[in-house]
């Protein structure tokens, strides 16, 4: 039991910093740093696991002090690092970009674009065109008032270069 736990822990703890750096880096700055620590070294699954993340160019390591957007980025890094242990074939993420500013939305979008492919499928619910215009395909959901029902329509973005401009205009 301890062995299984430690295999999972060391796998994730080796990767968390790399994932966080990749998520938070930008053209002008290096990404932040993140690591996991065990509360009880001797009996790992008895104690808890502490997660520390330090955004780029910041100094605090205390998760409580992070801002809303900084917490979201740290949370996504943890999610992706944990995922790498027994990777499930797909993610479904519902408005994870709600607290993010434009530059962090762009970082998430490019991370997903880079990592989606055979073996990992991202299905993302979003209200921000700066996120969804980067996807391969869109599923548009609207309410058909006469039938009092939700309806769906699909659009493959890869066929259109200008699709994102169209969708945003319709939304407004």
């Amino acid at each position: 039991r301890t062995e299984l736990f430690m295999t999972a822990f060391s796998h994730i703890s080796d990767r968390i910093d790399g994932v966080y750096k990749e998520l938070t880096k930008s053209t002008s700055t290096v990404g932040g740093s993140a690591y996991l620590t065990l509360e009880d070294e001797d009996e790992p699954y008895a104690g808890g696991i502490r997660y520390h993340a330090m955004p780029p160019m910041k100094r605090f390591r205390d998760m409580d002090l992070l801002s809303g957007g900084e917490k979201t980025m740290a949370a996504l890094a943890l999610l992706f690092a944990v995922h790498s242990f027994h990777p499930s074939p797909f993610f479904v993420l519902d408005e994870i970009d709600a607290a993010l500013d434009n530059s962090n939305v762009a970082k998430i979008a490019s991370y997903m674009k880079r990592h989606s492919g055979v073996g990992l499928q991202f299905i993302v619910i979003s209200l921000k065109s700066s996120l969804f215009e980067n996807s391969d395909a869109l599923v548009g959901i609207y309410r058909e008032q006469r039938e009092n029902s939700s309806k769906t329509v699909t659009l493959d973005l890869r066929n259109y270069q200008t699709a994102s401009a169209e969708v945003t205009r319709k939304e407004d």
Partner: protein
Amino acid sequence: GRLAGLELHNFKSYRGTASVGFGDASFTSIIGPNGAGKSNMLDAISFVLGVQSAQLRSHQLRDLIYRGRVESTENDEESSGSDVLLQDPTSAYVCAFYEKDNGELMKLKRTINTNGSSDYSINGKIVTSLQYSIALKAENILIKAKNFLVFQGDIENVAAQSPKDLARMLETIS
């Protein structure tokens, strides 16, 4: 593997049958105005994979069945004659079409029956919920850990969870 498509039948705000294909896209976005039914689509995916209804913003399975009539205790003038004639459905189902790495297609289906119980089936054959979750586990879809589903508003809680919770999450996936 990958999720190739979904079919919802009288599930939450989807009246009748609604089907969605994800094609060969590996990055798909679900968009639409507030209240359109986006999170209900995530609820459909969670439901068909075996997630319990408490997580799906409902108290019991029946709440997940499409309801069209005006929900009101008083005799509301809004529910005009034509409304009352249309009975609300009493059962619902969600199908997920999953494509394995070897190209084989697996049709996962979960129903809500008139009596409020729920059935699971794989490729048309009824199975127990245990057999269902074993078949999913073989594809690395671990419903207990749920670390691949993030419900609306939950993302910040992932980072702020207590050390104990984080250890427990790790224990489930190991």
